[in-house]
Structure formats: C-alpha cells, structure tokens
C-alpha cells in the first residue's frame, strides 16, 4: 500500500510526442510562422503538478443549443447539414469523460462571423458558427452543424484553406490541451494546404481527416462524419509497473 501511495505521488509524467507526429513551430511554407516561431531551443520541463492538472468543467458551462450550430438563430442556416460525432481518448486508449470541446467554423460560403474576415462571400444571419459541448462518460461527443466552405487566404498566390472545423479540447491536464482542425475526406485542397501539410508524418496528418459515416447519417436529414480525437495521457510505462 505504501508502495502504491509512493507510485501515486510520483505518477506525474505524461507521455511525450513521437518525432514527426506533431508540427514543428517553424514551417516556412506557412508564412506566419516565420516571425512567430521561437528561434531558441525549448527548455525540457519535467512534469510537476502544475503540468498534469488543468481546469475542470461542469454542465453549468453548457447551454442547450450549444452543440447544435443550426439552432442558434431564428431560421435554419444555408448549406449542407451534417452531424459530427466522435470520441475523445487519451494515448492509452482510455476515454476522456466530461471534457470541454469548443468548435468554430466558417459558414457554407466560406465566410467567418468575424469582423476581420474580408472574403467577399455572403454572411448568413442564421449562422454564427461557434459551439461547445462536454464529452459523456464514454468520451463521446456530438455536434450538429453545416459543412463549412473552403476560403481564400493571403499565405501565397491563389491560396485556399480546405474546408475545416476548428476544435479546441482540454483533456485532463494543462499539457493535454489540444487545438486542431477537422478536415473532410477527399478534399483536393489538402494537398496544397501548408497548415495541414505542416505535420511531417503522413499517417499522423491523416488523423485530422474525418470519416464519412453511414451509421451516423440520418435518412432525409443530414450526413454523418466521425472524428475521434486522441490526447496525451499519463505515461503508460508508469501504469504498467504498478
């Protein structure tokens, strides 16, 4: 028992990323990284309670229409209605329950409800494009929304972002925090997108592409897409030795 208690108090290490599975801070084809990526090496930080704890959320933070982006206004937004579902797991394959997921996206024409978005595509008064939800006890989540449009940006000549939904997920620890983007299968723009291509490992990159899912698809109503998210978890080798 004492042994276990000792293990428990030293059980503070989270697994580290394998090389190539995450983008480096500097990726020249994505121009904005040039003046923003740190130039000096990062300092290795052993994990303490400061790193392996993080904010805890409850249902009080979520309103009823927060996970239905098509129901936040008087009328229905224009575009292709979709259902996005998936699970949040940690790197040991364990579900991450009760964790906050926030999403934001462009409308079906590729325009954000943001003052600085200059894309000459129409706004949709029935669509803001922001949602939030908590995962259930199995780590599962569900959003109803419309498929976002591709949009142009200024990174290089004739640059277009593939259709994507921005995801922000907390997980159990401040260092399991993840902000990513969900893409759609078969999008021809992925091959030309430096944000997507910034992840060196091809298999890792493909984990950001959702899958069309006939089971989630509802007849005469909406297409279903599956997007599972994996967060860093406690180092499994420590668990194994208990």
């Amino acid at each position, binding site marked *: 028992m004492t042994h276990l208690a000792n293990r428990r108090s030293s059980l503070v290490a989270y697994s580290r990323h394998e090389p190539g599975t995450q983008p480096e801070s500097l990726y020249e084809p994505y121009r904005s990284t040039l003046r923003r990526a740190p130039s000096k090496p990062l300092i290795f*930080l052993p994990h303490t309670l400061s790193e392996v704890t993080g904010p805890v959320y409850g249902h009080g933070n979520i309103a009823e229409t927060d996970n239905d982006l098509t129901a936040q206004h008087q009328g229905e937004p224009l575009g292709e209605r979709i259902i996005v579902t998936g699970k949040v797991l940690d790197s040991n394959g364990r579900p991450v329950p009760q964790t906050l997921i926030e999403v934001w996206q462009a409308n079906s024409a590729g325009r954000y409800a943001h003052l600085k978005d200059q894309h000459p595509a129409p706004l949709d008064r029935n669509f803001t494009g922001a949602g939030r939800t908590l995962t259930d006890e199995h780590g599962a989540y569900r959003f109803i929304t419309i498929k976002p449009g591709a949009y142009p940006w200024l990174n290089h000549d004739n640059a277009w972002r593939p259709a994507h939904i921005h995801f922000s997920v907390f997980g159990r620890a401040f260092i399991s925090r993840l902000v990513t983007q969900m893409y759609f299968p078969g999008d021809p723009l992925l091959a030309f997108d430096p944000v997507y291509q910034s992840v060196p490992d091809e298999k890792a990159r493909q984990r950001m592409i959702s899958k069309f899912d006939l089971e989630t698809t509802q007849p005469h109503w909406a297409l279903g897409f599956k997007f599972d998210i994996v967060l860093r978890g406690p180092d499994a080798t420590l668990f194994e030795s208990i």
Partner: protein
Amino acid sequence: MRMVPTPSQTVGPFFAFGLTQGKACSPCIAGPDAKGERLRLLCCVLDGDGVPIPDAMIEIWQADADGKYHHPDDPKSATADPACLGFGRMGTAEDGTCMFETIKPGRVPGPAGVLQSPHLNLALFARGLLKQLYTRVYFANDPANQEDPILVLVPKERRSTLIAQLENGGRWRFEINLQGERETVFFDV
C-alpha cells in the same frame, strides 16, 4: 493500447467568436472571495519584429494561495480554495495586451518534492503558432525564485524573461517576446 495523439493545428486568426468572447472569456482566474494577495497581471505579446500581436490567446492555469490545484490529481485538492478555480483565458487587444485578475499562488511541490516558487502556467495560442507555446510567470523579488527547481534548468541569462515585474500602481507586467534578444523562454512539456 498505445495511440498517437491527434496533431495540433493553429488556432488561426478568427477564433474570437468561438474562444474569447462572451462566456468563453475569463479574465478572472480567482473569484473575489479567494484567499490570498490579489493582483492584476498585464500580459503583452510581441512578434519577432517587436510588433504587438493582436490575435493571440492566452490561457493561465494556477494553484490557490496554499499551492493546491483545483483538480482531482492534486492529492490536496479536497481542501483547495473553492473560490480559486485557477483558470483564465483572454484574447489580446490591438496593442497585443490583455489583463487578468487573480491571487498570487502558493508553492507547489516539484521534482523530488522540492517546493516550486509561486508561478502561473501560461499557454499561448495564435495565428502562426502551429502548436501552443508553454511558459511560466514568476514574480519579481520573491525570495523563493532563488531555489525554484525549474528556474535552475533555464540558462541564467534567460531567466529574467520568466519573471513578471511590478509596475507603478501595483500592476504586474509580463512581456512575451516570440523571438529576438529578449526571446521568452518556452518549455518543452
């Protein structure tokens, strides 16, 4: 079963309506009833040319005045201050700044049980950052900084980039420089 974590992607320029407006914005890290010395912290984010970044997001995570985290993995969480939830998040304004209100945290155990000096854990997100950057905010003139087990891992000449300074008027200031002479120390977590 070992699974590879999903890759990070930039938060982009248009996150405000999803992440930092309305109830998603939380400038108050510790409620008005929280124990401890109250303080205001102004954060300022500058790019490699020293130009303020108007589209960054800062998240802060901290312990209560006794050094306890409001989280089940802190063995002392049962007696943590319920008025100090410990989390804050803001977007920067046009001048690259944002201001948090909180209390000074207590000392948290570090490697081998050595107590750490009071610090805030900070994550920075922005267009151009493909993954968030982690740094820490320590407080100038705290004698515990001399024996902090993390600060000693940082080259001496760079330690000052992790230390907030008290300005006239009682407000703390923490400058984040992404590059350059005074480049802030970021951690490989």
